[in-house]
């Protein structure tokens, strides 16, 4: 029984870790895309 608890804990750590890291990358990417669009709008969209 204790063996299975360690097994579940280890599998949870691995898959939750991978999932959270990928989610963090995804949100980082979304934020940067938004910043990039905004900056390009400021640079090219504003009147000279």
């Amino acid at each position, binding site marked *: 029984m204790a063996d299975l608890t360690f097994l579940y804990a*280890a599998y949870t*750590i*691995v898959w939750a870790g991978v999932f959270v890291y990928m989610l963090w*990358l995804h949100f980082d*990417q979304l934020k940067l895309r938004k*910043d990039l669009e905004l*900056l390009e709008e400021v*640079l090219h969209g504003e009147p000279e």
Partner: protein
Amino acid sequence: MRPLDKVRITLLVVAAILTLVSIYLAVLYAPTHTTMGDVQRIFYFHVSSAWVAYMGFGLTFVTSLLYMKTKDLKWDVYAYSSAQIGVVFCTLAITTGPMWAKAVWGVYWRWEDLKLMMTLVLWLVFIAYLVLRANVQSRRKKANLSAVFSIIGLICIPLSFAANRLWSQYHPTVIATEEGSLQASMGFSFGIALLAFTILFIYILLTKIEIETMRETVEELKQKVGGRHG
């Protein structure tokens, strides 16, 4: 859709399918280990995580060398991206190992085991690498210091990988030893898990490189906007 996005999505789909297959193989297909019992099934993803960490750190070293040679910041972006992935997967290996150790050895950690200690040192070296990068403002200085640091960090990679092979330690040597050799079905399950993690590594690496390249562009544009308004 850009060609790179297509490649990334394909990699993600393949990695997801292989991951599900590898979980099935590790949990249901592979036989229960005769002496260790079910807890041995941790090994499939613990070793795969460590494998990705070694790939990440190894790639950091190679790209740092390329940066030192060419002074092209593109290589520094590659080095940083692979170092971060290495740290994440090394964290997974370092936290899942003690789960197995507690069940088999009765303790979470053995301070006298060189394999464990060298992996801990390797992990700390690359955490220091990330901390160093976060605290240096000048882009060029950050790249130069990081490259030197990761080249020094390389010493820990072979030591961590080979510690249990060179010196008799507690940590088991599963591959390339007769006593630790796997049954065919265990070997197959392990191979699929390694393949799934390798493809996952490539997918995450491409994503991370794209993010960091985008961050560089954002910083450049911010300076341009600042220049216009300042």
